């Protein structure tokens, strides 16, 4: 029986150009069709600019630009970077963490010299977050390497941890880098932020250009403050309609990835606009941009607005200048989504684009639930799952692991009252529901990690997770099965012991 969603698919997805996206073929068929229509030729990204184009001396011919193009224009001091063009860009913030930092530092020292200094000690943010609460000696050593470098270079922002036994004993320690960047005010509209992590695209929620790079590129930026980038064309996603109370940003991005596939946005920028987007808070916008990389996207952007400025008020003291896509900017593809017609989703094993309706997976018995990571471990994410537990009043049927992304999130869980609960905190609601005690903040088991990582999947189990990837072995065991879901869906699944639709608890 065809689902109502599929029948009305064409009204939900009306792509502008004659693409096949209005149809509802399987991702692999659509991927093939996408390749045939794809704009993305893999041209060289690392060549030096052949003929540097300076602004025309007679006055630049004005043409409309997208947000991403405008950000890169300002950062490169080129008036109109064209999609496909390789340009040198000034970097505002470079972030690295304990997994890629040591390698980046190694390259920096090898290439620029043992005694070289970083380009700007205030523009590098070093955040241990991946393999922290572990007895793995190399992992611990890697944090030491970061510390030594930060001392040597007098790096202004280093969120250090020394006492692994009690995260609260470390006043500087934050936790997951992408959330820490936002909470510490390092994300600003109009800027260029790079990080040695694929989910650096999260910061695009602030209306900036943010993308992930490898150690070598980062080493280069560390020394020069510049990077060679290929200007991406933009895919525009216009989301309208009132957000149903059983949907979260995670459902929106799973919908989109399921539609365009894991390679649908390769080398492209994803821009999210529309009334639904305007109604999202910052953490929900971060969730949306966070998984842009799962569609292959280079960066994601949400235009800055009052919500953004309000969030930044108490965190940031630097000037910034937001930019916005021109009305007649050229987008290679536009998608219109009527959010009110969407339903809670999961991404089934083993791909983030293996989209399915949660309600059609109710026969899938699960072994555990994981609520955490940059994607689904923020304060709003825990409030969302608490809401479901509260509505149910029952206990979870499977081990439910809670890993707050940062110290601040952990504190929020233990101190902020959940609306409609009579003053209970998230932590109390979680305790009453029989969840595990919220763990020390870090990336945790989202990516498996060292064997002793809390909540790592060491057996071939079935897990519903609020994280971002479910490729084979992602959370540890190669035969583990991971269903990606929103915090609502994850909590609902914990309560039933099966993949569940949160409407069963929220409506």
């Amino acid at each position, binding site marked *: 029986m065809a689902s109502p969603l599929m029948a009305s698919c064409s009204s939900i997805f009306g792509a502008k150009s004659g693409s096949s996206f209005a149809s509802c073929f399987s991702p692999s068929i659509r991927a093939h069709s996408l390749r045939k229509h794809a704009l993305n030729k893999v041209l060289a990204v690392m060549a030096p600019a052949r003929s540097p184009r300076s602004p025309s001396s007679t006055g630049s011919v004005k043409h409309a630009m997208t947000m991403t193009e405008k950000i890169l224009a300002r950062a490169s001091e080129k008036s109109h970077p064209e999609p496909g063009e390789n340009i040198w860009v000034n970097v505002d913030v470079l972030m690295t963490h304990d997994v890629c930092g040591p390698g980046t530092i190694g390259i920096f020292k090898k290439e620029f010299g043992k005694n070289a200094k970083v380009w700007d000690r205030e523009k590098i943010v070093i955040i241990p977050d991946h393999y922290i609460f572990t007895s793995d000696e190399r992992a611990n050593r890697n944090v030491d390497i970061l510390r030594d470098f930060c001392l040597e270079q007098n790096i202004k922002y280093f969120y250090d941890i020394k006492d692994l036994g009690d995260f609260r004993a470390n006043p500087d320690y934050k936790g997951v880098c992408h959330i820490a960047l936002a909470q510490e005010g390092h994300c600003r509209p109009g800027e260029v932020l790079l990080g040695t992590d694929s989910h650096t695209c999260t910061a695009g929620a602030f209306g900036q250009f943010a993308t992930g790079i490898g150690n*070598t590129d980062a080493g280069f930026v560390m020394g*020069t403050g510049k990077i060679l980038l290929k200007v991406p064309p933009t895919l525009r996603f216009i989301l309208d309609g009132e957000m149903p109370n059983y949907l979260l940003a995670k459902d929106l991005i799973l919908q989109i990835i399921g539609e365009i596939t894991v390679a649908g946005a390769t080398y492209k920028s994803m821009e999210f606009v529309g009334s639904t987007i305007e109604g999202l808070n910052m953490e929900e916008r971060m969730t949306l941009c966070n998984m842009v990389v799962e569609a292959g996207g280079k960066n994601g952007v949400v235009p800055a607005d009052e919500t953004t400025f309000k969030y930044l008020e108490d965190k940031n003291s630097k000037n910034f200048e937001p930019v916005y896509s021109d009305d007649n900017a050229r987008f290679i593809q536009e998608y219109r989504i009527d959010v009110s017609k969407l339903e809670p989703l999961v991404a089934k094993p083993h791909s983030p684009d293996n989209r399915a309706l949660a309600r059609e997976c109710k026969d899938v018995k699960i072994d555990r639930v994981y609520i955490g990571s940059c994607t689904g471990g923020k304060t709003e994410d825990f409030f969302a799952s608490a809401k479901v537990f509260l509505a149910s009043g029952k206990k979870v049927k499977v081990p439910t692991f809670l890993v707050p992304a940062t110290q601040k999130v952990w504190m929020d869980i233990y101190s902020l009252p959940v609306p409609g609960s009579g003053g209970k905190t998230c932590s109390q609601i979680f305790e009453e529901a029989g969840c595990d005690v919220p763990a020390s903040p870090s990336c945790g088991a989202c990516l498996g990690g060292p064997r002793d990582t809390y909540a790592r999947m060491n057996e071939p189990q079935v897990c519903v997770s609020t994280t971002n990837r479910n490729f084979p072995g992602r959370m540890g065991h190669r035969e583990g099965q991971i269903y990606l879901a929103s915090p609502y869906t994850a909590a609902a699944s914990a309560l039933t012991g099966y993949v569940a639709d949160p409407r069963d608890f929220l409506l």
Partner: protein
Amino acid sequence: VEGAEALGFPSHSCVSNMAMAAAASAAATVGAKPSFSYHATHALLISRLRHGLSFPKRISSSCPTLDSRSAPKPLPLRRPPRATAAPAETAPATFHGPCYVLGDNIDTDQIIPAEYLTLVPSKPDEYEKLGSYALVGLPSAAYTTPFVGPGATRTRFPVIIAGANFGCGSSREHAPVALGAAGARAVVAESYARIFFRNSVATGEVYPVESEGVGLWKECTTGDIVTVELGENLLVNHTTGKEYKLKPIGDAGPVIDAGGIFAYARKTGMIASPSN
């Protein structure tokens, strides 16, 4: 690049690759126009030395009989490489040997599982260890032949053939590093995820080559003997007798030839040459 000054002499590290060695030897023959068989032999020699493989019995410049499906023949190179403009330029890279075949969407967690990311690629001994774990994340049911054999630290497969979106997932540079450290020289895939492609070029660890068409991986089997001729944009599967057009590696080629983005930037004068 303004502001980018190399202050120290980059030490000769284990990360330098075949191309650098070939470049060095090519530079040594300044003024001499390299003969066809010299460069083919030389590139192959370096490649084989590096990977501990045995030498072929003879290197023939005659055309191979591609319709033969018997045991793999010794390397025949079909056409002479393009004449190089400057003597210091290397001949286009060529890779030969058994191939390892993968499907679509091979993500970085399969290439190098997260638990091994505590290894720091810029440390030579940990670099080697990364190589020993290359592709260990592949599900064993689907991939019965391990990329790196039991007890081995390097692979016997210099060429990887893959489907679409190779290297998707994480930005971890450990992924192309693990492949390169294991001894892979080139990946021939239908398409790449952007960060992996970028990292391959920046490190110079593997050539990320694209096939012109799709479905190449379905016609090849792990163990087939192949030759990748970058200069001819050609992949030859000697075992099946089929040939496949490749997209030109373009500007990424010289960067990888030079040994990565830093080496290339110095070679082209983009950043200052190191001085003592």
